[in-house]
């Protein structure tokens, strides 16, 4: 699971607190380019928010293998589907499908976030929250908890890492310590005999500072 997907799940839990969710799917009659679809989605969202200013929800882009990019939407309030259809037609959209879902089923949409990101969607926000009056979880609010991340945090403190410099060198060090931790049965985030990393000598950690990064 990625951090983005976890943030989406947290945001969807917030959205579905009163257990009343509606899942919408917006598609096109014709196959459109990804950029055109995004433009049309922005226009449709503007129209929807004008018609229902209190509308809150989450949208997910899905690039279908045959039907191109389409949009899934989860909202927590009922809106008139006929009126929404008129707005969708005005914004150039084709079919609309809406279904009431229990809050726990919202994770269904998260499966689209698990797909491998295709080249044309690089740097895109695959999901986004919209609507005023609620505070959805953002990716920056989410912290990862794993053996790797705990070792990373211990290393960050030990090496006084700031910023994002020498990223791959950092990763190599953390990976090496992860391997040593598992192989030697060390406590997570500590060196041999439970010593903090800063108390260990390089020989104990079998770590040598390296000035180059692996090219591949």
């Amino acid at each position, binding site marked *: 699971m990625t951090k983005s997907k976890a943030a989406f799940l947290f945001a969807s*839990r917030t959205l579905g607190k009163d257990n009343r969710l509606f899942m919408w799917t917006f598609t096109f009659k014709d196959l459109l380019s990804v950029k055109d679809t995004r433009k049309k989605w922005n226009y449709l969202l503007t129209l929807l928010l004008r018609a229902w200013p209190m509308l809150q929800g989450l949208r997910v882009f899905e690039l279908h293998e045959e039907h191109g990019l389409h949009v899934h939407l989860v909202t927590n309030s009922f809106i008139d589907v006929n009126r929404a259809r008129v707005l969708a037609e005005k914004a150039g959209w084709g079919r609309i499908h809406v279904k009431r879902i229990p809050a726990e089923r919202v994770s269904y949409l998260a499966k689209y976030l698990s797909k491998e990101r295709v080249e044309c969607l690089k740097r895109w926000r695959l999901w986004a929250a919209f609507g005023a009056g609620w505070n959805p979880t953002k990716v920056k609010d989410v*912290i990862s908890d794993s053996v790797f991340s705990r070792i990373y945090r211990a290393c960050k403190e030990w090496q006084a890492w700031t910023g994002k410099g020498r990223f791959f060198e950092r990763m190599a060090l953390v990976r090496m310590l992860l391997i040593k931790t598992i192989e030697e049965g060390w406590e997570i985030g500590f060196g041999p005999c439970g010593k903090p990393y800063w108390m260990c000598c390089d020989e104990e950690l079998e770590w040598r500072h390296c000035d180059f990064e692996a090219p591949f």
Partner: protein
Amino acid sequence: MTRDELLQHILRGRLLLVGEFRGAHAESAGYVDQRTGEAVSYVRAIYLVECACRGILDRAIIRQKRLGVEEPEQVKFPYEKGKLYAFFLEGFKLERGHFSGWIGDRGPEPIETGEEVDGAPSGAPPPLNLVSSQTTPQSV
């Protein structure tokens, strides 16, 4: 698993990695929402395998999500350090020289080693990539 069975899997096109088991660890991995304190977590096993998948002997890390397991302590690793195991991979990535793979429900399977891995029948010619010190002069 015998060597023949292993070969059958390879010939069927199964993606698998064979390596020496070096250690394992079960962790409770997941994400925490700093604002609400909510968490999504799952138990994951990490296997450390020594193999030469990039031509040089190196450690590979293989992860396995353990569905239905609530606590990392419940995960048992009945594997022997130093023994060869086959890992049926669901996927892998090779990033900057580091191999990371992940497996599904099927755990590591020991490979029965009836004979030495590098053993060759007596009288067989040496592999082509080896240079014999008997035929190559060390100094002129």
